[in-house]
């Protein structure tokens, strides 16, 4: 997989191409996931129930990726899926659970069996680590974490987890958290033009910083729109094309999570997922049925059923 990528708008770090070599950034989910190598680090977009890149997680599982590290504030069933299928070996996160439903059962089991290591931070700390990565500075200062075991204990980063220093200006204690610049940023958005200019509806969580911190950015979009649509409202562009290396366009990327203005979460499916993952057998059954048992995202959607999906479509003006 080595398509030459560039756009009408020019691409950072890739500036010697002539017009004849300007290719479209739009690729398939299979192609996108193939670019990820075992051992890579991924900034993982979405927050809580919102814009979770579930379809990308499924394909990582199908392609049997191993030893990936996920950097994110908090993720829920996407992490459960990847951890359950042994795709991830390390997490640098603040939160993993299924909000309102309960603990992350797969994570709990994989931690107990020693299959994954979690380096614990807080949401602010992770968001600042992405901001630092986007700014290309080595660390960012914060005023939380101090006094607790998040400072005192480290899983594998050792003294590179964070540093508490005396501020050279004020003498106050300040916590420095190291910036993150992983191999990839994976971010799910509502819509994108062919160049990669992306709009996000609703909250952005930590995705503005996260989309800019990875060495390569893959944008997953529900919809592709004409360039005119983007350029008509440039203030709405959350991610300019110059950051974007590849685009995957698919519907219901986040199912069973939600995508503001496009579809609501599938609470029934979520509850089923959470219930099945209470046992390893239940999880394996889910894995076989919904992920390994299908060839691609559309087959997954077929199993979920288009009537169900249709019922989840967002209603105006509420966006869910």
């Amino acid at each position, binding site marked *: 997989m080595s398509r030459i990528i560039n756009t009408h708008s020019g691409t950072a770090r890739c500036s010697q191409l002539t017009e004849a070599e300007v290719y479209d950034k739009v690729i398939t989910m299979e192609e996108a996931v193939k670019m990820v190598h075992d051992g890579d680090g991924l900034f993982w977009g979405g927050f809580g129930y919102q814009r979770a890149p579930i379809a990308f997680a499924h394909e990582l599982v199908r392609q049997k990726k191993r030893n990936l590290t996920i950097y994110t504030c908090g993720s829920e069933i996407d992490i459960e899926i990847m951890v359950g299928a042994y795709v991830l070996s390390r997490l640098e996160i603040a*939160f*993993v659970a299924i909000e309102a439903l309960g*603990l992350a059962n797969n994570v709990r089991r994989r931690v107990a069996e020693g299959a994954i290591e979690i380096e614990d931070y807080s*949401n602010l700390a992770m968001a600042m680590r992405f901001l630092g990565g986007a700014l290309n500075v080595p660390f960012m200062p914060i005023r939380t974490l101090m*006094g607790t*075991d998040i400072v*005192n204990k480290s899983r594998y980063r050792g003294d590179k987890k964070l540093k508490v220093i005396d501020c050279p200006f004020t003498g106050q204690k300040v916590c420095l958290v190291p910036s993150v610049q992983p191999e990839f940023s994976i971010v799910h958005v509502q819509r994108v033009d062919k160049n990669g200019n992306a709009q996000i509806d609703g909250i952005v969580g930590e995705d503005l910083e996260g989309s800019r911190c990875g060495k390569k950015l893959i944008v997953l979009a529900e919809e592709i729109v004409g360039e005119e649509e983007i350029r008509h409202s440039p203030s709405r562009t959350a991610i300019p094309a110059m950051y974007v290396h590849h685009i995957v366009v698919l519907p219901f990327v986040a199912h069973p999570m939600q995508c503001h203005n496009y579809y609501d979460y599938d609470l029934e499916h979520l509850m089923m997922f959470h219930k099945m993952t209470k046992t390893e057998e239940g999880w394996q059954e889910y894995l076989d049925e919904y992920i390994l048992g299908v060839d691609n995202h559309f087959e997954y959607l077929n199993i979920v059923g288009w009537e169900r999906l249709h019922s989840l479509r967002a209603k105006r003006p509420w966006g869910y």
Partner: protein
Amino acid sequence: MVKYTKIEFLTACAASHVRDGENVFGGTGMPLLAALLAKETHAPHINLISEAGFIDAHPRNVPLSVADSRYYYGCAAAIGLIETLGFILQAGRIDVGFLGAAQIDEYGNLNTTYIGPYEKPKVRLPGSGGGNDIASCAKRLVIMMTHDKRKFVKKLDYMTSPGHLEGPGSREKWGLIGGGPEVVITDMCQMDFDPETKKIRLMTVHPGYTVDDVLDNVMFDLIVPEKVPQTPEPTEEQIRIMHELDPHGVYLGKGK
């Protein structure tokens, strides 16, 4: 006499700690329901903020996630985490935040990360999320927990979020900008913190429980003042409104 379930009681009790005009981090679950209840009753001018990025939210349906689209419609601003946790919370602009925990110690320090030794944990819990940030920075912290002896421990398995740390002066030592825990609400009682020692102290006992019930269910020496009043009961109106807020009983359960 008003009839109520335990969850209804706790929701009303939590709501009483939200004051009008405050900037509130609601999160999800019972604290969110409590904040919404407060807004519909005694505190109509609170600014309800979700750390995912929603500011001054008025959800018409109760959200399940801090990022739930239900927070969006009619809110005043929808931004992101640097805004809510950095510009708002870390800058000292949050009046009250709510947290739950799996373990609490006598200084109100909280564990939401691991049960068992760090090196070989028995149970992985959710982790901090925004919890450490809220506990570090909110002016007041309200903690909500199920009352269980194994949760009120002498020593946490892991300290995720700072309470009063090691007592007087220790939050100041680390420059934490918030005031720390103010009250702990359980299904048996409310506790606050002794201003001198910063240790947890019994405040009120819920109807149906005694001081001894509480003392039997903590693993440290709980300060008991001379007078321990009974926690006020919810009103009919509070119960009616909280069910209007959670019509499907996501948090309150199906039966009224």
